[in-house]
């Protein structure tokens, strides 16, 4: 992994988001904007948006952070995960309606979840750390495929093209990797 453990970065982002929520702190927001806006733009472009649309959607996602930072709950996810979800829903809505509708207050990830029953609720922060550890613990080949799928955001057939592996092998190795992730969650106490 090229980066330090993701947790200090997530803590830094959570602290900045808290300042935005508490006092509309422009300096804190600008730091988050400079980190996330270019990354969201790149992410959206990897998923088929042209540069102008990607930039527009990325700005809309960051505008949600500015106006609704109080709804981000660091106990549930990292800020990166939260913004990724908002970006995905925006992109799907844009495809489905051909226009982005007004912000939906009922969007589940912006609402406090229904209280989870004690036996199923995993601590979300522990889950994020665990997923990172599970990813690092995968055999080299599986980790490479997961990175191509989730980090480079290639489709299965694109991965087959890049690696020279048959499509069926790509699918089955990704399934093995998913199985390992699910086992890691089980070990964490969830019934997955």
């Amino acid at each position, binding site marked *: 992994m090229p980066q330090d453990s993701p947790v200090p970065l997530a803590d830094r982002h959570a602290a900045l988001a808290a300042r935005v929520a508490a006092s509309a702190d422009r300096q804190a927001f600008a730091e988050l904007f400079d980190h996330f806006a270019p990354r969201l733009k790149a992410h959206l472009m990897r998923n088929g948006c042209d540069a102008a649309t990607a930039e527009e959607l990325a700005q809309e996602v960051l505008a949600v952070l500015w106006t609704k930072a109080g709804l981000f709950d660091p106990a549930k996810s990292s800020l990166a995960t939260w913004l990724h979800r908002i970006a995905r829903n925006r992109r799907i809505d844009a495809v489905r309606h051909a226009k982005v509708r007004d912000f939906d207050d009922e969007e589940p990830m912006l609402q406090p979840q229904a209280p*989870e029953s004690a036996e199923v609720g995993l601590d979300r922060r522990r889950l994020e750390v665990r997923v990172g550890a599970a990813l690092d613990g995968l055999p080299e080949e599986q980790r490479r495929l997961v990175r191509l799928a989730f*980090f480079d955001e290639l489709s299965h057939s694109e991965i087959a093209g890049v690696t020279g592996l048959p499509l069926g092998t790509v699918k089955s190795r990704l399934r093995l990797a998913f199985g390992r992730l699910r086992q*890691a*969650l089980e070990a964490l106490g969830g*019934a997955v």
Partner: protein
Amino acid sequence: MPAADDAAADLIAAHVQGRLPPPLDALIAAHLEMAPAARDFGDALEALAGRALDEAPGVALADRDAALERIFGLAPVVTPPRPPAQRSPDALPRALARFTEGTPEDWRFVWFGIRRRPLGRSGDFTAELLRIAGGGRIPQHTHTGLEATLVLSGGFSDGDRSFGPGDLTVTGPEDHHAPVADPEGCLCFTVVEGAGVRLSSRLGRAVADLVTAVTGGR
């Protein structure tokens, strides 16, 4: 790990990555709302995608300062966390409620004890709600592509497997199946790819065609 779980895991991964067509996306989102174990898996993949967003290189904005100024012009919205809205046990999962919004409550005859409420086509996929009376049996059938079924209430069994609220089944074109509803009946959301469901027996097809001809599909 059963193959059926693999197919469901593939769909959950595709949902997290935003690669599913709208009907399947709504189906998987509803499954994640209803099934805690699936939600944990989905959240794990979300965490992975979030970490990817943190680590991947960015593409510079065309005009960063102007974008920032525009956002600073928006008034922050103070939204105190609300308690979750009271939802009746019969209410559709939120993702499905959104998906069905604006479609008519139009239940049509399919087969004895089975009614369907069409929810439209999207590309290659047809979505509908299916209501099966207690003990109702769906005639053995195949489909030309993928069929994904989410149990919303009640349940059914198919061969030696049984399914309850929140359970998801994914079957491919090669699978013949003949689900039977539990005594309390079953409400399902199904998404079928391609030309849709095809009854396996010639008699079944003939009767279904006749009923459709007589009732106009209602």
